[in-house]
């Protein structure tokens, strides 16, 4: 079993038009910049993959990462909790022009829906959003005298993840708070594609320290010294 792919281009051939794509990261922490940019390059060269649904906590910042996908015109729909950022122009312009759809999901519900997708739980109840616009049209039920909203699992065709260490069997660790949504997305996607800062031999990660077990991972590309979205933005990257 060897999940290591030689290049991002190879690994990304699983991404096709119209797919749903979960992208790890919260703000810049955990954003798989090289992976996203490889996908943008492919789109600019070939016109594919387009019409994507992108699932991420945010909706891009500045002109790199998900914002670059939006500027390129690859994204038809965003599922996120917070489509604002220090420079949200890429998303905001398209959204206000009606050129991109938005499904707004409270952050905890987004995380739990993705986990449910990975864990085979088709629906669950949460107190979050009860009595708000977000809950409109969703089933409501009372448990022990308190009202809850039924939410559905969220799965995706592909997850794009940034890990710290990886081995060829797919075991992953994450750096600090770059973990955020990535372990959940790795569970919830048909194909999970990982850029890892360092690939180690199996056993190179202590079994007690593995965060994402290999069963949730399909393809790994080593990207040493990866870029950090927030650092890029502060350098004024376009």
């Amino acid at each position, binding site marked *: 079993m060897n999940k290591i792919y030689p290049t991002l281009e190879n690994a990304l051939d699983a991404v096709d038009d119209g797919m749903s794509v979960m992208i790890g990261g919260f703000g810049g*922490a955990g954003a798989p910049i090289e992976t996203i940019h490889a996908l943008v390059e492919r789109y600019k060269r070939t016109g594919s993959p387009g019409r994507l649904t992108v699932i991420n906590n945010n909706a891009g910042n500045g002109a790199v990462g998900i914002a670059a996908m939006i500027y390129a015109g690859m994204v038809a729909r965003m599922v996120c909790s*917070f489509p*604002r*950022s220090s420079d949200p122009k890429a998303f905001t312009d398209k959204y206000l022009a009606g050129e991109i759809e938005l499904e707004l999901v409270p*952050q*905890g519900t987004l995380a*739990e829906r993705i986990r449910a997708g990975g864990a085979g739980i088709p629906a669950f109840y949460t107190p979050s959003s009860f009595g*708000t616009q977000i809950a409109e049209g969703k089933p409501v039920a009372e448990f022990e005298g308190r009202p809850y909203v039924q939410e559905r699992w969220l799965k995706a065709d592909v997850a794009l993840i940034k890990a710290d260490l990886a081995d060829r069997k797919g075991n992953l660790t994450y750096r600090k708070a770059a973990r955020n949504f990535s372990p*959940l997305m790795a569970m919830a996607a048909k194909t999970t594609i990982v850029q890892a800062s360092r690939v180690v031999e199996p056993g190179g990660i202590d079994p007690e320290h593995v*965060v994402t077990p290999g069963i949730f991972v399909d393809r790994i590309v080593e990207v040493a010294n990866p870029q950090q979205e927030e650092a890029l933005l502060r350098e004024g990257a376009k």
Partner: protein
Amino acid sequence: MTTKLTNAQIAWRAAQDLPDAAYVNLGIGFPEMVAKFKPKGREVTYHTENGILDFGEAPPAGEEDWDLINAGKKAVTLNPGASFFHHADSFAMVRGGHLDVAVLGAYQVAESGDLANWSTGPGSVPAVGGAMDLVHGAKQVWVITDHVTKKGEPKLVESCTLPLTGVGCVTRVYTSLAVVDVVDKRFVVREKLASISLDDLQAVTGAKLAVGDTIGELNVPEI
């Protein structure tokens, strides 16, 4: 005589009520200021929904690690005993009732405890973040806010006209004029500035103010 607290003073007042050994989530922006005024000798553990428990102050400029940020995407540091976890575990802490206090900002708070703090209505890009989860689960949900809007309209109201963040969730409001509890769907004044009469406070409040046994004086240092 103080006629209106500054934001820093509101944050200071709220911080005085942080219990020792509490787990606390401070909302993005203004609520983050509360940490600055935590009374000495009390140990408070801060949670940020992007997956850190027990983070500390901002690092010096130039020493930021952008993989180590809070929910507001600001760089933070770690205290000894910090931990990282993924988003589902983070919101298990929130939704599961493990936080003692969540502090949030508000556009409007209703006497029922309803909160509106995420959307000013159509025309802008809606963004909810973690607020709808934070208002459910934390044992106490505090709002810190100016008593009225920039236009002078009441923010404490009979019922919210803006889109709701949560129903019946706010337990206490720290404003620029008073400290108000939400008890059995009524606003109960606990403290007010000495400079304002109860009638004048009522006049800038959009719902009937009840009074408990006593009203304390809202005393805040110059900051």
